[in-house]
């Protein structure tokens, strides 16, 4: 059944209908991302959680590329998978043994957390379905990186400078907080 559906998708692709191919790619990415995210918040092993986070972040990069935002997708891979996950792995390494892997990794309020998560999903999902009934994403061509650069350095120059100051503050703050006196 699935093979037939995939074959039909392939046929449509060959006949020039890329929408079906996009939807198949989206479906695969979405399923992989949600399964990996669920495993990330339920696994007892912290290192495994970091590796599941890598899968989710790579899936988000795939979604960005599917949406035609190539530059954001590449930045996602460079900054998130390249830097932030490595930072997480260092943090796990430096705090190793703080919580054993067999020990219960979740609080006793897990049921309440499940309830809150489901409520968030129902409310936001309902609002989204109510607001954007059948708006379609029909991007003719991927967005141009040159246009992104032009817009950042003209219209968004003040937020850009603010982000650079923020990064400097975070750098100094992290050193001040974490250094040994």
């Amino acid at each position, binding site marked *: 059944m699935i093979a037939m559906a995939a074959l039909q998708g392939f046929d449509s692709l060959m006949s020039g209908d890329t929408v079906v191919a996009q939807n198949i790619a989206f479906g695969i990415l979405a399923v992989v991302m949600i399964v990996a995210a669920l495993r990330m918040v339920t696994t007892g092993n912290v290192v495994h959680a970091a590796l599941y986070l890598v899968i989710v972040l790579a899936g988000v990069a795939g979604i960005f590329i599917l949406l035609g935002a190539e530059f954001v997708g590449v930045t996602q891979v460079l900054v998130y998978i390249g830097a*932030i996950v490595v930072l997480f792995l260092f943090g796990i390494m430096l705090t190793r043994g703080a919580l054993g892997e067999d020990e219960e990794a979740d*609080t006793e309020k897990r049921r309440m957390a499940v309830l809150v998560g489901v409520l968030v999903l129902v409310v936001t999902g309902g609002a989204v379905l109510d607001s954007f009934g059948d708006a379609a994403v029909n991007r003719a061509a991927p967005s141009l990186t040159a246009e992104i650069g032009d817009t950042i350095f003209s219209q968004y120059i003040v937020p850009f400078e603010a982000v650079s100051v923020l990064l400097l503050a975070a750098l100094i703050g992290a050193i001040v907080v974490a250094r040994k006196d």
Partner: protein
Amino acid sequence: MLLNQFLLLAAALFAIGVYGVLARRNGVLVLMSIELILNSVNINLVAFSAVSATVGGEIFALFIIAVAAAEVGVGLAMVLLLYRNRRSIDLTEIDQLRG
């Protein structure tokens, strides 16, 4: 592709991230769940940017990526400080401010 499918995927990731923040007791795992939430917001921004055929949403996604990097740096420094002072990163034990 419908706009809704991206927004619903982002809503699902957001809800999973909220669950992770509330249910986890390890400080590093809570920070990871916050990353999940920020990524779901980025999906929304880029999807709206694709619908409106402007680059504004993509630029805000880039800003959020930069802010997330800063947040993880400071957050992990705080977790390391916590570990050094208390030999534990169990957030349920950090309750001195409780009345």
